[in-house]
């Protein structure tokens, strides 16, 4: 399906068909790759695909079909969570902090080889080379208080006006120092389903205004579970004597995400839940989904490395 979709996008996007066939017959990796390709049209697109394809009705119809399928699978994994208006921020923080999923960072800290770290960097590059972009789509969907807080968080992610401090740029410089390609998605073909899907999830939550709660809950879980693992990665990369640029990238996240997690939970998510109570449970759904996706990513890469997770 992904091959057929890319070929049609290059020639005549209007001829895309909505029905990708019987779901039983569609390989899940192929479906995830197809959705990733269609989502990519809303970022920087492809050199050989017309920018008009982004808003082509046939493209949107197929994208919608695949997004609905993805969201249904995510909702089926979500056990639900009771939401309290009075203690929303503390409950959300505790919910995320209680996550005990497998940790890639702990393995990198003490055991991983340099080759394994390079593989991790290549897989992570699908997100980190456009770090923070999916959450930016949520900005105009928010009310005043959470909007101001998200803008403040994103301002820091985007380097506070300094291109050389933009996080995605810091990651690109680190990849360069490691001898890797910094061209976006150059390593997509080696990435498993778990990488494609975690990127599709972030784009889905960002693009669809209906899912603004899930988008911000995902952001909160991502930030809350970033600082401590980033510290472990710093120690592992130092142990391996890897390039300063990649060490600096994770060291930056130890401090930055100790700020961002509080902003995300207390100033974005709690304010969003207060202004729009119907979004409160979806905030937890988004947080759960982030943790769930990260756990699946960890099992995939640790499994590949022969480590029990």
């Amino acid at each position: 399906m992904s091959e057929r979709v890319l070929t049609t996008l290059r020639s005549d996007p209007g001829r895309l068909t909505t029905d990708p066939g019987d779901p039983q017959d569609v390989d899940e990796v192929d479906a995830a790759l197809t959705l990733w390709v269609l989502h990519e049209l809303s970022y920087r697109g492809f050199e050989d695909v017309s920018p008009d394809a982004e808003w082509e009705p046939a493209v949107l119809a197929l994208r919608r079909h695949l997004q609905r399928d993805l969201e249904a699978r995510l909702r089926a994994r979500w056990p639900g969570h009771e939401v309290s208006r009075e203690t929303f921020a503390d409950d959300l923080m505790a919910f995320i902090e209680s996550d005990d999923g497998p940790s890639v960072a702990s393995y990198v800290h003490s055991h991983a080889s340099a080759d394994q770290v390079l593989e991790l960097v290549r897989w992570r590059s699908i997100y980190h080379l456009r770090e923070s972009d999916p959450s930016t789509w949520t900005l105009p969907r928010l009310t005043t208080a959470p909007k101001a807080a998200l803008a403040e968080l994103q301002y820091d992610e985007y380097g506070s006006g300094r291109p050389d401090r933009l996080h995605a740029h810091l990651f690109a410089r680190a990849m360069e120092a490691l001898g890797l390609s910094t061209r976006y998605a150059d390593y997509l073909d080696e990435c498993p389903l778990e990488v494609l899907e975690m990127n599709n999830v972030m784009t889905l939550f960002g693009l669809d205004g209906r899912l603004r709660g899930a988008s911000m809950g995902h952001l909160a879980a991502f930030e809350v579970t970033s600082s401590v693992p980033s510290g472990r990665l710093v120690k592992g990369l130092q142990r391996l004597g890897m390039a300063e640029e990649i060490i600096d990238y994770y060291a930056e996240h130890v401090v930055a995400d100790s700020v961002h997690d509080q902003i995300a939970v207390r100033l974005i998510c709690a304010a969003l839940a207060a202004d729009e109570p119907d979004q409160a449970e979806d905030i937890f759904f988004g947080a759960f989904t982030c943790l769930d996706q990260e756990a699946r990513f960890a099992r995939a890469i640790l499994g590949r490395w022969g480590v029990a997770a």
Partner: protein
Amino acid sequence: MTTLPERVLVCPGGPLLLRGCQTYTDGEGVEHAVDRTVVAVCRCGFSGRLPWCDSTHKRLPPDKRPD
């Protein structure tokens, strides 16, 4: 240190967020340069990056975390 109320947020169990400071002076009178719009100041005392928070509080038992 600027301490207008709207510029300070005490995070239960975690750090103190300060917004819009040029510098931060710690309890021993040492001045630290501030290079971001919002900074998180450690309140648990166990950070490896003092005076800044490095999320060490997340690994502490509940009774060791700041109120």
